[in-house]
């Protein structure tokens, strides 16, 4: 689930997040926390872009399957005719 920056900051307010170096744990400084939120937002955006790209590929594949069906063909028939292994 994609979170806005405000939602993320509300979930992890400054003072609630720690960093650990070997056995020692301490609260993040404000500068560290700001950079950490930036990084999380970037990671989330990249992952959402990946998911959107995959959804677009799935939609294209589904559209092609529906066009084949309209012609009276199935994916299995196409695979058999051309010796292809279509992605599942």
């Amino acid at each position, binding site marked *: 689930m994609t979170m806005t920056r405000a939602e993320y900051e509300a979930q992890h307010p400054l003072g*609630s997040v*720690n960093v650990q*170096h*070997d056995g020692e744990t301490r609260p993040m400084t404000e500068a560290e926390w700001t950079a950490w939120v930036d990084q*999380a937002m970037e990671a989330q955006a990249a992952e959402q872009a990946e998911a959107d790209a995959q959804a677009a590929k799935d939609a294209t594949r589904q559209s092609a399957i529906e066009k084949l069906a309209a012609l009276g063909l199935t994916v299995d028939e196409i695979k058999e005719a051309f010796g292809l292994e279509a992605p599942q």
Partner: protein
Amino acid sequence: MSRLTVGSIEGLTENSNVISVPTGHSLNVADAGGLQIGGSAVGLVHVSRTTIGTAVSSVTVSNCFSSTYDNYKVIVAIDSTTNNSQCVGQLGAGSVTTTNYNSYLYTEQDAWGTFSPASVQSTSGLILGYCDNINVSHNSNDIISPYRATLTSSFGFYTQDDNGGFQISRQTDTTQFTDITIGPAAGTMTGGFIDVYGYAKA
């Protein structure tokens, strides 16, 4: 290291050049590098265990890579995390390196029992696995040549409450890395451990 003979250790017996530990006794090698063949340590040698604290964004395991071993196994068991996100490992040598990674993770994505393949990538760290937003996340990765002055590779597998998969990564600097900083790309983690093992060179 002092030399012991079979007769000097209670319980050990020798027959036809085979040394046996009788039932009810155990052989305890206290030094992780103490079990050797031909003068070299054998198998996986435990380097460190770091217990994961409470609400931590990351854990740095320092000085876990050295010239002693070329290759390592890193096992991460996280008891709980707050967000769905990649589990990332950033190499370091005093300070954390956040660039020059090419990392990919492939997963069955949805809840166990539903197959819906997906992938994620990162350029800011080795992907070690994927974290669930509540429950346990486990991953195991081999890390190749972190301390050698060449690129570093890693590959491994993960499972968590919702899904599982595998991941491959590399870091292209020639830095001799000594540390690894592990944590979720978003949110915090609480509880569990990070174990680092070295593959004996012999």
